[in-house]
């Protein structure tokens, strides 16, 4: 009996030490500096009251025309299917009417806070907006002549908090998904001159 115990005691002890050493070594990892990945890919979705999401798409076009489309409210509805209308007021405020869950209309009022030609547009919601949100769209040359990387990031307070966020996800109307779709449509429009569809557009009055 004793013999058996001592036979196992040493390996067990060594194993125990190894586990302890592993945990000790692992601990600082949780406070290590952030990695190279963009913040929006963090496992954490919520940052305070905000949900953060975003997406990159590489488009075979120069940054200039892409920036120009994004800067012109009248161009955005060409590829943004979830935007009913966008208008720029004289004071520089943009008024977006969005299609929310269950076809409900949501009004978003924004203004541009930073802008660098063919590079960056950053915006933020202003008073009177039904959604608290901010975001940015970045344009940079893609490597190997592949065109331009367009990167859109949005941080917003989901109406209805956590519950509202999950409802939107369940109905497929969360901004991350819609934004991804809009970016892909922009890519189609710029690269092919049209937006792929399998079904004729619904005819009004039918």
């Amino acid at each position, binding site marked *: 009996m004793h013999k058996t115990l001592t036979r196992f005691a040493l390996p067990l002890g060594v194993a125990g030490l190894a586990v302890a050493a592993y945990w000790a070594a692992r601990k600082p990892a949780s406070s290590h500096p952030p990695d190279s990945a963009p913040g929006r890919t963090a496992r954490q979705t919520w940052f305070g009251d905000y949900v953060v999401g975003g997406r990159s798409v590489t488009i075979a076009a120069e940054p200039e025309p892409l920036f120009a489309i994004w800067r012109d409210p009248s161009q955005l509805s060409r590829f943004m299917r979830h935007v009913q209308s966008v208008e720029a007021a004289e004071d520089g405020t943009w008024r977006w009417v969005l299609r929310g869950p269950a076809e409900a209309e949501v009004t978003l009022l924004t203004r541009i806070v930073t802008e660098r030609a063919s590079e960056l547009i950053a915006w933020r919601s202003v008073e009177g907006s039904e959604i608290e949100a901010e975001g940015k769209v970045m344009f940079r040359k893609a490597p190997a002549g592949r065109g331009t990387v367009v990167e859109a990031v949005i941080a917003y307070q989901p109406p209805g908090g956590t519950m509202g966020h999950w409802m939107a996800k369940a109905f497929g109307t969360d901004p991350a998904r819609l934004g991804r779709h809009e970016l892909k449509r922009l*890519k189609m429009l710029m*690269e*092919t001159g*049209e937006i792929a569809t*399998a079904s004729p557009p619904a005819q009004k009055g039918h």
Partner: protein
Amino acid sequence: MRALTFHGTHDVRVETVPDPRLINPRDAIIEVTATAICGSDLHLYNGVIPGVARGDILGHEFMGRVVEAGPQSTLRPGERVVVPFTISCGSCFFCQMQLFSACDNSNPVESQDASELAYGHAMSGLFGYSHLTGGYPGGQAQYVRVPFSDVGPIVIPEGLEDEQVLFLSDILPTGWMAAENAGIRQGDTVAVWGCGPVGLFAIQSALIMGAGQVIAIDHYPHRLDLARGLGAKVIDYTQTDVLEALMEMSGGIGPDAVIDAVGMESHGFAPDNLMDTVKQKVGLGADRGHALRMALMAVRKGGRVSIPGVYGGMVDKFPLGALMQKGLEVRSGQTHVQRYSQDLLRRIGEGEIDTTFLISHRLPLEEAAEGYRNFRDNQNEWTKVVLKP
């Protein structure tokens, strides 16, 4: 118009549906003169491909006459064309690399989410092949809307019959790419699992590319006869131990390259296949990978594995060890049809390639459901069904 529509597993019907019309500037409308039932249509018919909705028009092998062309189409009304089953924009990163079946811009964005979730990346658009690939109405119909008609359709010169060129839409380039993916060198031994249309065209292509011997594996006598007629040696897996035979027929080395032209619905009573069949029936597993497992075991060390057979999901009991330990090279994919169109059209025109030997039955479109049933249940005699709308 009349069209073949999906209504559930083993339930397809010819119905009257609205005519297609031009939507985008690069579209064209084709009046179909000939269309075929593909082996991969049987995967839809058997209900093993997800995302097929009631009322969807099937069919992705078709040709016909242009009746209407959008302002950006390069086709003219009256032209006779074969339409590739892959829908490709011609200008995205992938199309520029001639990876036409990986096109980024042909699958409507709403349909991209499902394949992005299933495969990590969105698939391109295909005709008549579930909503994972866009839900585009297919070609077993009187008329079809063809998107990006300036890129895909091949204009057919006078003097070639429909049946000589129809298979440029899918199975001929698929068999050709299967052989190309096998990296065939002069004198190679190439083993092909499955003597359906793609397997037979892969055999034909492998011999043109310089294979020393092609060994075809199946169990239907008539299909094995067709393979023999093309110049292949054959193995009936119900009579012969395939792995042992392949070793002995290749001087103890094993085939230099193997081609799995079977895909997700393997036949036979091997234990792994019976388990897979049960799992597929109850929805636990998507694919039956018996042929691919055999191919991986059979191929020589450092050999090449080509997979034109269709798979949709997960497979287990996969001999990953054989793949790694033998240092195998694997190539696969939906066919980049447009890459091969002109070369294969020329070979048909010059008489080097004949595809008509494959056609066993010709039916009016109205009898398409009958065609599906027989193509599935009488595979020995029913090797290829051509429908005439």
